[in-house]
Structure formats: C-alpha cells, structure tokens
C-alpha cells in the first residue's frame, strides 16, 4: 500500500451521521453486523446540530427536545453500540465489486481509505433549493442566503447575515429563521410565499411569525433582486393561479438580505452513481418497507429518501434500514418479491413505493396529501387483484395538510398474490379531489 492509502473491510457502511444514519448504525450493530459510519463533518448529529430550537423528539422520547439535545441522545446510543465511526471523511466514489460487495473511496485528512462492505445505507440527508433553481433574475450580490445557511451562520458561527431581511418561501426552516433572526435583533420585513398556503407547519406560522408580528404574504413572490455588491432591495409581486407574477402588483422593498426557504432536495448523488432509481415525486430512492432501494444491497433512510418534517420519523426509518442492511450483509442476498404500492388521487406521494411480500417486516406507509383537507379524510390501503380491491388497513385523519407527513400502520399480515397495493383517500365532506 502506498503512503496514506489504507484498506478496510466491514459488513455495513452507513453514509451520513444525522439522526437517520445514527439510528441505522445502532440497529445494524445490534443485529450483529460490523458497522462503519462515515460522516463528512467533524461531529455527528447532521442538520440537528444547527437546529437550536425545540420541538424534536415528541414522538420518540415524549419530550420537547432541541435539535442538539436530540442529536446528543442519538450519539450516546451510537457510542454505546460499538459501531465504528470515521468523521471528516468524504466518500468520493462508490462502486459495486462482484455481486455481493461494494467498494468505497473515502477521503479524509488522515488519508484515503478503500472500504469494502456488503451493504450500504444511504443516510445523506438533503440539500436546499437555491435561487437559481427558482429562476430569480438579476445579478448575484452578497446577501442572498438559503435558510439553512443563515441558520448555520447565526447558530454555529455567531454571525448576523444582515440587518433587514426578506424571507422567500414559507418552509419550516424559513419560518424558524424568521423568529431566530428577530430574536437576534434583525428586522424581518415579511415572509413571501408563492403558493396560496404556507408550506411549513401551522404551529411554526403561529410561534415563529404571529408571536412576533411578522407578516406572511401568500400568493406573492420575489421577482428580482436589486444591488450590485450587496442586496439593496427586492421586488415582490402577487401571482396568479399559475404562479405567474401579475403585472401592476410589483412592490419595491428595501432590505439587505434575502433568505430563501424554497424547499429541500434529497441528496442522492452517490446512490444514483450506483444505479439506484429515484422517485420523481420524492426525489429520493424508491424503497420497499425495509428501506431497501431497487439496487440490491443499497438501503436508504431519513431525508435522503423523502423530506420528513419530524426527526422522530427519520430515526425510525434509520432503525428499519440498519436492521435490514445487517440482515442482508450477514445472511447474504435474499430473494425479494416486490409489489408496487401506489398513492391514489389526492396524495403528493407515499413511501414505501414497494412492498416485499417475502419479508416479514411490515412497518408503516408515510404519505402527504397534495392539498389541505380541512374536513378530514379516511385513508385506506387496498390490495388490488384483477380490479378487485381488498381493504387492508384504514385510518381517519381529522385534517390533512401537505406540510404534514402522516402515517398508516400496515397490518401484520399482507395477502400475497396482489398485483399492487393502493392508498386511497375518502374526504369526509364527500368532496372530490380537484388536484
């Protein structure tokens, strides 16, 4: 071996040490597998490290924890599990080697490691959508930040991104940053949302905006940015039903900072390089109930699969993925019989997209509605066989909102031989679905 180039071998490699990866590593280790967790930052915890606000863990710990507290608990469990950890390590390439293992090139300040593993768990989280992807025209002065970048600057670096901010997009991170910046003395002029409904949780609209008198403008967007060196202002305009700015409604706002909270995109470059197919709606890998992707031996969990609103759900998907990856690594490739699970009208998406009927594991279906159903709805899962629908599980939800991820627990026994499973929505007000 040449200088600084090492070889390693293990059963399961987990990529990313956020809540998803930590939970996956713990569960793979407790299933008896040798586990290596690889994280590119110098500390575990993922995005939670910078989420100093509280509201995490209500489901898993029944406590209202802050992000760092939630991460510390998961990190403690990880440390106790005996799995190995590589921090400040970046996987630059992942390839399949033979039919039952993978080879990863892993770069860190300690050198380059080539890691051989039998199963991979992708827990790489997500990245934020940027101004270029929402096509704001104009030059690029300083002062345009994604909400997560602003959050890192304020909470980790102790820097104020500006003095007067406009927030574009009402995603949760944007709402949380509206409050955070206000507490730190930054004037937040308003939150502008192109859609007719906020994209963040109702409680965040309440406690982050209304509590501080920050206005929320719906069906309004930022059309251009002014300023050469630093942002000097933005133009906002009302939009029509097809999200196009309505001429004559433009307003000039003075501000030195534009914060974008326009969505998150699952991070899957490495998974894609391994041939993992993605879902167009979630932009994450398509998985079965074991969080197994369509590429044998590659598992995925957390925000890399779809954007979760709760860290608790993320941890749960990590636990499932880690256990299944350990079983695959230790027991060798097993046959899978994948039956598609489709979301009917009224849903943005449902995860998992497949059920492996040969696997004993059941779990839950997570879904989002594509519009607010204020009257509530009954959501049911049916097994389809030659146009016959047999209901397997159902639950009534008092209200469905697109920002909120909901779950339907799968029954312990699934009939085999179904052509597909389908998730259906029956609105309590009897209304059809117009979307």
């Amino acid at each position: 071996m040449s200088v600084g180039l090492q070889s390693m071998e293990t059963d399961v490699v987990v990529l990313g040490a956020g809540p998803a990866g930590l939970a996956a590593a713990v569960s793979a280790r407790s299933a008896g597998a040798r586990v290596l967790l690889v994280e590119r930052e110098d500390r575990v915890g993922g995005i939670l490290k910078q989420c100093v606000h509280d509201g995490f863990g209500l489901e898993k710990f029944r406590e209202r924890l802050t992000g760092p507290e939630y991460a510390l608990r998961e990190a403690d469990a990880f440390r106790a599990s005996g799995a190995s950890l590589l921090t400040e390590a970046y996987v630059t390439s992942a390839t399949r080697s033979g039919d039952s293992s993978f080879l990863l090139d892993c770069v860190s300040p300690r050198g380059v490691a080539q890691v051989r593993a039998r199963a991979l768990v992708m827990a790489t989280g997500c990245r934020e959508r940027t101004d270029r992807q929402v096509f704001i025209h104009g030059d690029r002065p300083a002062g345009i930040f994604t909400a997560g970048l602003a959050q890192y600057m304020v909470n980790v670096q102790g820097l104020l991104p500006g003095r007067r901010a406009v927030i574009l997009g009402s995603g949760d991170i944007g709402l949380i940053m509206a409050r955070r910046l206000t507490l730190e003395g930054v004037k937040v002029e308003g939150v502008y949302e192109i859609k007719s409904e906020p994209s963040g949780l109702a409680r965040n609209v309440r406690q982050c905006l209304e509590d501080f008198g920050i206005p929320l403008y719906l069906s309004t967007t930022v059309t251009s940015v002014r300023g050469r060196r630093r942002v000097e202002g933005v133009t906002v305009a009302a939009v029509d039903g097809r999200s196009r700015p309505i001429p004559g409604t433009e307003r000039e706002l003075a501000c030195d900072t534009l914060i974008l909270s326009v969505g998150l995109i699952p991070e899957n470059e490495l998974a894609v390089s391994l041939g993992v197919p993605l879902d167009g709606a979630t932009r994450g890998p398509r998985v079965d109930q074991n969080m197994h992707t369509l590429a044998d031996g590659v598992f995925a969990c957390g925000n890399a699969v779809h954007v979760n609103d709760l860290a608790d759900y993320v941890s749960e998907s990590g636990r499932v993925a880690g256990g299944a990856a350990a079983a695959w690594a230790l027991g060798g490739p097993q046959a899978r019989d994948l039956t598609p699970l489709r979301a009917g009208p009224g849903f943005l998406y449902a995860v998992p997209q497949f059920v492996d009927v040969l696997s004993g594991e059941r779990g839950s279906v997570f879904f989002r509605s594509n519009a607010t159903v204020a009257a509530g709805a009954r959501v049911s899962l049916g097994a389809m066989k030659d146009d016959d629908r047999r209901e397997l599980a159902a639950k009534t939800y008092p209200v469905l909102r697109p920002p909120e991820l909901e779950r339907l627990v799968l029954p312990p026994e699934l009939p085999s031989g179904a052509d597909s499973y389908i998730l259906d929505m029956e609105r309590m007000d009897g209304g059809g679905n117009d979307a």
Partner: protein
Amino acid sequence: MPETLNLTCIVCPRGCRLTVVKDGDAVSVSGHACPRGEAYGRQEAVCPLRSLTTTVRADGGARPRLAVRSSADLPLSRLLDAMAALDGVVVRAPVRAGDVVARDILGLGVDMLATDNLEEARHE
C-alpha cells in the same frame, strides 16, 4: 363581553385549531385533540408562555457559540428582554449539555441551560 380567540396549538406538530372563549375569569377551550391542548389554550388566554431557545457566546471552545434553552417557559412578552440580558453572558469551554449557563433570568425564576456539549478548542 366574551372574547373569542382563534389559535393554533403549538404543543405538538399536529397543530390543532383551537377556539378559546374568555368571559371575565371563565375560559373555555374547544378544538383540541388532547388535554395538553386545552391547557395551552387556557394559558394563552391569560398570559402566553414560550420556551426560549438561543445561543450564548463561548470562549475557548471549538465553536464561538453554545446552544441554550430556558429551563421553563417565559412570558412571550419578555423574550426579547431575555435575549438582551443574554447578550452579556459568556461561557467558558468545556461545557456539558444540561449545565446552567445563567441563573434566574430577569428574575423570572427561570435558568438557561446548555443544550449541547462544547469541547475546548483544539490547537492546530
């Protein structure tokens, strides 16, 4: 004259829409899906309380700021005062999550606690 408040419950992510009717000292809450929501609605009618999560300056640590939280909820109207009071607080690394970083903030009987560990700075 009864006074009606329409609120979003913030106790859990479900975000129930509450209706709080206040008639003199009598407060009635509806729309909640659980008792925590009812308690929240009552409190909101009297004096809204919020937890405070923020950061304080740190010296000698691996990072320049430490994440902190209030040990109990504070009146919403005092959050910015509490922030101003915390401007002067500086902790010295190392700190463990749970350590008290400021006592009895604004005389409200609430402490500020570290929510993260902060190791000493490594010297390169």
